[in-house]
């Protein structure tokens, strides 16, 4: 069976902007500027009330399928990665399967993964191509963490945005396609990226709604997403270069062979440190967070999509994607584009509820 290849990408972020001025009024100019100096994030896109991660994914998928004139009945696999689905039961894949008008012969399921979602989803799709289950797959990476972050949690509000990416996978031709994967887990750190009262272990009640301020003034409750920033930063700076080196060795390639190295868009300083440790030269680096924020599970494919849109990715390019986060988990994927490259589709950076009402 042929491998899977990326043949189209489209990313979508909502129209609503969360600006530095708004955050300075909330947290103080000094705090906000200090974080922005390191994170490189100066504006975030967040959903307006009533809009969800599924809406963003729907718009990304609908526009991609429309732009490429893909008959919806030919999609035989739908994978949705999200941590902010519409419902705990059922998975968001089923909601989107209906909205997108996909066929009954299309397999659909959710993957509960965070920032490392993209390599995981690509690997699952690749396995289903090789086993003959799938011939044309749609992967939707979407998250809207703004809805589960406490508005007074300075460390998370300032970093995160909401967004979705649709990726179309079709049978590879010649040497293009998904060439290799490398994964790992350090579960000793799962508590450092966690929403405690979000499932069966800690039922919601009066206690979980109690606001707690830490010694820096950040406020949250157990019903909100929480991050131990210093642990995650330390993990990323050390673990990611190590696993990328392992992956390069496993794939039999070097940084010199690669055309582009795309990392999870968590924080500009963090990404720069990882690039530096790996010896990735500026022309092989790419950043897409300054005006959208960290898009969680959508961040890595959004950066790839934006690189395509900006003409940074040429036909036949060899690209390394490395993503890391919740779990703590990481994934690395090696991808070669086809001779025709990826057709650039203008990004959707303007999604409103009115758009969704027009195309329910």
């Amino acid at each position: 069976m042929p491998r899977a290849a990326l043949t189209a990408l489209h990313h979508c972020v909502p129209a609503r902007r969360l600006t530095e001025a708004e955050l300075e009024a909330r947290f103080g100019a000094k705090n906000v500027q200090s974080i922005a100096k390191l994170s490189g994030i100066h504006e975030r896109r967040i959903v307006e009330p009533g809009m969800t991660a599924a809406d963003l994914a729907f718009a990304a998928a609908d526009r991609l399928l429309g732009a490429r004139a893909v008959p919806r009945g030919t999609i035989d696999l739908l994978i949705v990665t999200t941590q902010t689905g519409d419902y705990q039961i059922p998975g968001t894949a089923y909601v989107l399967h209906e909205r997108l008008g996909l066929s009954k012969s299309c397999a659909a399921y959710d993957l509960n993964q965070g920032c490392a979602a993209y390599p995981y989803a690509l690997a699952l799709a690749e396995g289903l191509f090789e086993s003959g289950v799938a011939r044309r797959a749609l992967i939707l990476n979407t998250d809207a963490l703004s809805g589960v972050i406490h508005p007074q949690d300075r460390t998370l509000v300032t970093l995160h945005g909401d967004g979705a990416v649709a990726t179309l996978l079709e049978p590879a031709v010649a040497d293009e396609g998904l060439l290799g994967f490398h994964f790992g887990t350090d579960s000793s750190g799962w508590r450092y990226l966690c929403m405690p009262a979000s499932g069966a272990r800690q039922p919601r009640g009066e206690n979980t709604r109690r606001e707690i301020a830490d010694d820096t003034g950040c406020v949250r409750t157990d019903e909100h997403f929480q991050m131990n920033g210093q642990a995650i930063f330390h993990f990323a700076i050390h673990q990611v270069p190590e696993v990328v080196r392992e992956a390069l060795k496993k794939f039999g390639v070097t940084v010199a062979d690669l055309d582009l190295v795309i990392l999870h868009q968590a924080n500009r300083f963090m990404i720069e440190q990882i690039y530096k440790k790996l010896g990735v030269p500026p022309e092989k680096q790419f950043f897409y967070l300054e005006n959208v924020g960290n898009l969680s599970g959508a961040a890595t494919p959004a950066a790839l999509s934006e690189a395509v849109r900006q003409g940074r990715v040429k036909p036949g390019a060899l690209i390394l994607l490395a993503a890391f986060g919740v779990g703590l988990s990481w994934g690395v994927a090696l991808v070669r584009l086809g001779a025709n490259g990826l057709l650039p589709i203008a990004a959707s950076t303007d999604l409103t509820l009115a758009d969704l009402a027009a195309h329910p």
Partner: protein
Amino acid sequence: MTREEKLGRLQEIFRDVLDQPTLRITEDFSTTDCPEWDSVATVQIVLAAETAFGIRVPLETVAHLRNARELLDLLP
């Protein structure tokens, strides 16, 4: 290197990261003593100490680091 010498080396790192050239620290120096010592500064302090002393600070220690002593105890 004595514990006092190690604290002196750490003090240089704290001065540099916190941008306070005349800062003097004791083993009890903590995040509550210095508003500039936030989570970003913690990471910078840990990374600088790891480079200076050739160590790797465990993730759990980094996650809960609040005073100089916790770092000093790890230095060889």
